[in-house]
């Protein structure tokens, strides 16, 4: 965006050189060369400036959150960024005076179990759709495509009622949430199917010729090759419930002990009065929640990038 603003001024001095590029006679070669080089340097400097500005914009909120979480002189939102009095008060309060430890354990349990089960389900689904051929395969895929267009939000109320009938809401929301997260996860098979599609078919055939059953092909041949996609699925399946807000809020329904961190922390800011009391504590909570997932994400970034790129390419 900003690039285009700069162009007119720059173009004045350098354009003649570029325009003549094809026709420039030999003696002027040096001049042209210098012009190109200078132009590239200017271009790069502009890009650097843009990138630095972008980095500041992108990091600014996070730096703010961290700084605010150490602010001790007041708890409400204020118009300045650097705290006047530093300290760990907010963190101490968070862990001693609120239900935050409970929320954190809830979230951790939900995320870990969901990640494991969901990965198994997604892999089952995607492997089957990608590498096995059976009657109704196309139908199943189209069916899920159409299903995906219904707004999932609407199914919440009925799922809530079903869970309530099973006694899995409010204080007991953990199993209920896991059940709901996991149950429909088979619909998100696209990215790992894309991965399985890229593995050569000859691998399966060779194993089949050697007398392996389909199950053995999966466990002995394909799975050892699937590390990237397994890690990608685990990572995304873990991150989903870690930050899920809407359904968790619905299922816990105001019962503090059944909340996850997202719901609990959102509660801190739900009203103006709460915001006044809890703003810095919310920041501290945000830091506590964000740090582990960020570290995990950064460690596994490579797999995430592979998955996202592959997924977008294959649709």
């Amino acid at each position, binding site marked *: 965006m900003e690039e285009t603003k700069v162009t007119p001024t720059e173009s004045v001095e350098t354009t003649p050189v570029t325009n003549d590029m094809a026709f420039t006679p030999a003696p002027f070669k040096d001049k042209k060369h210098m012009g190109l080089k200078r132009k590239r340097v200017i271009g790069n400097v502009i890009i650097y400036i843009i990138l630095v500005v972008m*980095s500041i914009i992108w990091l600014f909120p*996070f730096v703010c959150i961290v700084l605010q979480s150490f602010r001790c002189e007041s708890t409400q939102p204020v*118009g300045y960024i650097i705290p006047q009095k530093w300290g760990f008060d907010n963190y101490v309060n968070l862990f001693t005076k609120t239900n935050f430890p409970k929320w954190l354990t809830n979230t951790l349990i939900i995320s870990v179990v969901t990640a494991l089960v969901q990965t198994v389900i997604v892999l089952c689904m995607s492997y089957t759709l990608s590498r096995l051929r059976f009657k109704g395969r196309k139908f199943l895929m189209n069916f899920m495509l159409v299903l995906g267009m219904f707004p999932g939000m609407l*199914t919440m109320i009925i799922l809530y009622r079903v869970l309530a009938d099973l006694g899995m809401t409010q204080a007991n929301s953990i199993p209920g949430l896991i059940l709901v997260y996991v149950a429909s996860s088979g619909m998100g098979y696209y990215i790992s199917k894309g991965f399985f599609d890229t593995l050569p078919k000859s691998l399966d055939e060779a194993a089949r010729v050697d007398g392996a059953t389909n*199950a053995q092909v999966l466990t002995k041949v394909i799975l050892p090759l699937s590390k990237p996609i397994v890690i990608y699925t685990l990572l995304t399946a873990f991150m989903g419930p870690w*930050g899920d807000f809407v359904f968790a809020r619905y299922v816990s329904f105001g019962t503090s002990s059944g909340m996850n961190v997202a719901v609990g922390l959102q509660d801190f800011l739900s009203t103006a009065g709460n915001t006044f009391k809890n703003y810095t504590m919310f920041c501290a909570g*945000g830091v506590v929640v964000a740090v582990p*997932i960020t570290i995990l994400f950064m460690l596994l970034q490579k797999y995430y990038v592979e998955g996202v790129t592959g997924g*977008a*390419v294959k649709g």
Partner: protein
Amino acid sequence: MQVEDEKEKQPESVVEEAETTSAPTPAPIAVEKHSRLEYSDLEYLKLSKWQRFLYHIARFFLGIPAWFKNAGIAIWHFLKKCGLGVWHEIKDIGLTFVHGDWKTKISYGVMGFGSLARGQILRGILFLSFEVIFIVYMVFWGGYWLSMLPSLGKLGPAEEYNEELDTYITVYHDNSFKILLYGILTLFFIVAFIYTWRLNIKQNKISEEILATGKKLKSGKQDLRSLVDDEFHKTLLALPVTGILVFTVMPILFMILVAFTNYSGATNNGYTNNLFSWVGWNNFNTLLNWKSGNTAYSAAFGEILGWTLMWAFFATFSNYFLGMLVAIMINKKGIHFKKVWRTILVLTIAIPQFISLLYVSRMFADNGIIIARLQQWHWVGDNFSFFGDKANPWVSRLMVILINIWIGIPYLMLIATGILMNIPEDLYESARIDGANVWQQYTKITLPYMLFVTGPYLLTSFIGNMNNFNVIYLLTGGGPTNGAVSAASGSVGYTDLLITWLYKITMGANSEYYMASVIGILVFVVSAVLSMIVYNFMPSNKHEEDYQ
């Protein structure tokens, strides 16, 4: 790099003008000749850029009747296929009964009898036990749910005298919600039973044929073994598909049916009167204002649908092009610290959205850092607000889109980086040798390739943005309130999407779940229609081999 653009554009536009002045002559002839808007390849190549564009647009609109025709034909073929399929099944069932032996005939009533009698104990037991369970369920529970389905229950809760306690207590009779829910489940069960019954008959027929050729039938052990081999897909799909059926298909069916009832869906522990009933198309009429005099809903719906589409368009394409631009900048030769730039952006993906969005929403709130600063510098007045009720709606909408760019660019940057690396470098090389400038390289190589590869992604992200609950809800909560249309079930905001409106309707003080269901169905219709149109337009659909 942009330096070249400005200059190069000029000659190009001259050429374009020359083309436009010379081109119109063949065009009318072509139209006359074919009496339809269709050019041959040669005629098409003679057209200027704009004429080509207009040509495509015209083709698109002229093609619409053909779509409907094709869709009609497709539906007719589908129905014909279904009808024929059912007829074949029925014929086969009849023929199997006529030609089958006595074991087969008994299997029509006692499922699995044929299998048991022929020594396939495992299959026989499974069939038989399924039948027993089905009958027991239908007699004790299923029959009740099914019989109540047409009326959705008649008796509400009542105070009745209880002799044991010697006092009046509330007795809950029919519960419409449960009737609808278990009614659907019972219907599912009946379909499953019919399918299994048909399977059982087919089994008998196949067994008879196998035995007639003198071969042996599969033993139970072999059956189990086939579950990890030839029938492995059944093993793998059993769990995921059951999950989807129970937790997605069933709720969606329920939701569709609720749109035809007056179920208001109290959010708390049940509702005072456990009954609701069928109302036909009334709710659709209310929302679309076909008949009813109440325009509150239709006004809100029109307003919100317009903004939803606008939002989805801008959110998708702003992210797409800016993300691509960032990726190109980072990947440019001579730029150092590529990894650092990427990591900084990717950080936004790692941090859970509810934290970043909630925090950003507080930054832009009326007493937040940003407004405080802007007021301090006297850039904005004292009453300025981004998302508060006194805000200018267009400022709020613009801000939502801008903040969404902040969220979306990192994803697009990652995706675009991966794809850009796949474009063969020699394409650019030869383009440069031919004298193409950066802009031409971008529009002729990078952009077509990106669009080709990410066409399906663009579509899914458009629909995803239409239903982008998190960004809107956490950022603005729908605000600023839209006074003009707020009459319909609680407040409606200028930045409310259909999906957040739907959430408000279900969660509000006086929730109207039936309206939410109608909106949900309409969201589905809009997504499906859009997908169909875009899918027809998508380059990956037309020129599959172009980039291979």
